[in-house]
């Protein structure tokens, strides 16, 4: 019996469980509470609200939106459930008022019951969020080798800008290539924007958004991309390279000029040639002219005959002075030889003639001293002619040997170009003295050009005596008048040995192969007596 009781109980329990299971699978309940999500006005003229429904309780559930409004009596229902999609309510212009408060609720209802959402209060002024701008267009502008990106767009077409009902402002953002970093710019109320810092060869992606009054920003527009072409860059290196090369070239040239400035100076401003006399050092002269230097000067001075147009024959006459001691002569000679520059051949001649001169001691007559020319091919001395047989003593007879008593007088032709003298034929005239007249017999001796030089005499050591030329008879006769010597040394005067010498009165250049001294006649007709210090 008790077991039967328990069986009944179990059966009830099972039935109850079954009922519960059946009830579970087919739950029908009143709907869950819907939730009003948000409302939005895209242009400040209409607005839309969205809600989220709760559970429907297994039964078909409807949702309704009810609202109340400031300055409007009663409760009203949503005018449009369709236009904005499911679970939404769209308020058109006629039902939208600004600056008034709306109080919204959503009611979900099914067979079993209702559910009401929380109240939502809104002012349309505060829920303004526009649509994103439309037709974003990119364009590359090439301006003077610097490209720029021109972005343009349009306002969202449902906003009324023209009437002034809303004020719109824009913003855009740009990113390069594949990076994720955006750079933002604001555009104000303009519907275009220029990007200036744009690199060629890079792709740029742009997005634009807008805002009405002081409301919310719209969503970003769809991306628009554009790459900057590369061709714009090739021209630039050329224009950078050219000035750089030019600058480098200029620096190199300047450098070279600075290094070679001395040479450049000589080339551009050559030094003015100054008169220079070979063998004469002007520095020596500046200090103090000494005997040596003056001898050198004498030696070096060229014959300046240019001012005499006519070719003149000059007679170079020297006469021996028997009085002189041989050693004096030799010493003098040595001195003279020392004076002569090395270019002269005279040195050796003189020295060789020295013993000869010494031998002439016993020559008691006036004699001419001369240096024999045939021993050397380059006789360069002045010839001294002897007076004729009257000569009593002459110390220098020995030197006469190669020649007869007659001597030769070097006649030089002076005039014109002295350089032509090199190959000049020297004309020697035999001198014969008859009484006081010198008679010249012309003989032409051709001498080689080389090495013919002159003897310069020291002017200082010569006591000059002059014999007046009485008469010049043509080409071959010079008549002298014997006169008393003016030199302080009376001994010379007594001796009546005198040297007649045509002294050079002007500088003489030894650089050439001169063939003798050129002298000129004094206007007064005097011929110098110059002691010949051979």
């Amino acid at each position, binding site marked *: 019996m008790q077991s039967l009781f328990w069986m009944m109980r179990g059966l009830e329990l099972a039935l109850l469980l079954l009922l519960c299971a059946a009830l579970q699978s087919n739950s029908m309940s009143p709907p869950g509470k819907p939730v009003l999500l948000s409302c939005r006005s895209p242009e400040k003229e209409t607005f839309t609200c969205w809600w989220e429904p709760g559970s429907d309780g297994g039964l078909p559930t409807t949702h309704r939106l009810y609202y109340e409004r400031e300055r409007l009596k009663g409760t009203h229902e949503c005018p449009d459930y369709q236009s904005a999609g499911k679970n939404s309510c769209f308020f058109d212009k006629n039902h939208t008022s600004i600056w008034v408060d709306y109080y919204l609720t959503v009611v979900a209802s099914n067979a079993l019951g209702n559910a009401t959402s929380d109240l939502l209060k809104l002012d349309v002024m505060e829920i303004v969020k526009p649509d994103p701008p439309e037709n974003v267009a990119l364009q590359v502008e090439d301006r003077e080798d610097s490209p720029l990106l021109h972005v343009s767009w349009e306002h969202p077409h449902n906003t009324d*800008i023209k009437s002034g009902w809303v004020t719109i402002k824009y913003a855009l953002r740009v990113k390069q290539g594949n990076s994720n970093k955006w750079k933002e710019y604001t555009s104000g109320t303009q519907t275009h924007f220029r990007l200036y810092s744009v690199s060629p060869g890079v792709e740029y992606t742009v997005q634009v958004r807008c805002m009405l009054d002081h409301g919310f920003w719209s969503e970003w527009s769809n991306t628009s991309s554009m790459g900057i072409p590369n061709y714009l860059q090739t021209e630039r290196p050329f224009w950078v390279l050219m000035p750089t090369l030019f600058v480098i070239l200029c620096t190199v040239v300047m450098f070279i000029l600075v290094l070679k400035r001395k040479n450049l100076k000589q080339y551009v401003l050559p030094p003015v040639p100054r008169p220079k006399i070979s063998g004469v050092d002007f520095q020596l002269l500046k200090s103090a002219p000494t005997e040596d230097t003056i001898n050198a000067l004498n030696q070096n001075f060229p014959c300046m005959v240019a001012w005499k147009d006519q070719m003149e024959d000059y007679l170079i006459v020297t006469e021996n002075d028997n009085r002189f001691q041989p050693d004096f002569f030799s010493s003098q000679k040595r001195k003279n030889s020392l004076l002569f520059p090395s270019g002269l051949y005279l040195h050796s001649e003189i020295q060789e003639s020295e013993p000869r001169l010494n031998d002439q001691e016993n020559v008691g007559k006036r004699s001419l001293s001369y240096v024999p020319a045939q021993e050397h091919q380059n006789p360069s001395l002045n010839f001294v002619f002897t007076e004729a047989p009257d000569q009593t003593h002459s110390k220098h007879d020995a030197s006469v040997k190669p020649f007869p008593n007659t001597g030769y007088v070097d006649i030089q032709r002076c005039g014109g170009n002295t350089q032509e003298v090199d190959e000049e034929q020297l004309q020697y005239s035999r001198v014969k003295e008859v009484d006081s007249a010198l008679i010249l017999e012309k003989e032409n001796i051709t001498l080689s050009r080389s090495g013919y030089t002159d003897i310069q005499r020291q002017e200082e050591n010569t006591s000059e005596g002059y014999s007046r030329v009485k008469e010049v008879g043509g080409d071959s006769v010079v008549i002298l008048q014997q006169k008393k010597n003016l030199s302080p040394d009376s001994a010379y005067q007594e001796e009546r040995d005198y040297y007649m010498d045509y002294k050079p009165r002007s500088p003489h250049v030894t650089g050439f192969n001169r063939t003798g001294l050129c002298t000129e006649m004094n206007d007064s007709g005097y011929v110098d007596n110059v002691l010949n210090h051979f």
Partner: protein
Amino acid sequence: MLTDKTGTMKEVGLAALMLVYLELSMRVGSAPICHHEQTGCHTPPLEDLFDRVVQQSSRMHGISSDLQSEFGRHFFPSKNIIEKRKCHTHGILTPADKENTQRLGRDQLTEVILRLLGAWADPLSQLLQSMSLDKNQDLNHHNINKVLEISDMVHELRDGVEKMAEKMKLLGVLGNTIGYVSPEILAPSPTVSFYKQGELNSMDHHDLLYCLNRDSNKIKNYLRVLKCTTLPGLDC
């Protein structure tokens, strides 16, 4: 001697006249200027007036928005305040959408603007007073400056709109029916009595700022519509 005296008298009189003239001309105030164009007084062109007024109203609305959001954030974290409130300018009839605004016409629109502006002069000064007395010192200093700025702006804007209205009247754009309205007549009831007797608390501050924000937005919008209907140009 007699001539000297008369001379100096003349000079003095001239100087006095000049001083009086300068004194009168320098008075700006809220009195309408340039009743007659023949007097040769100089006012800026209408576009400039409109631009300045619109800019000023926009700035004012911006500051009031900032104020309200700050106040709301600090005191009332929840967005939705359920309780219904009324602003003291509730009595002024204002168009609530674009069509009505455009339908209203220039004259009435200008008048509405002027009324709104007039209605806020007193409440703002009261708000300032009340805020400066507030115990809570944290955000008051920053906000008080803003309220002060808005208060000045309201005054300036009112003057500007009045001058603009005068100019428009001269140009024949506005009818002569618009007269000078005093703020006492416009405001339906004083602010303090409307909200509460005695001191305003922070709740009242918040309400006041909310109403201010709304009204500044209205003013801005109305001015823009007025400008674009009167001078349609690039900005519209």
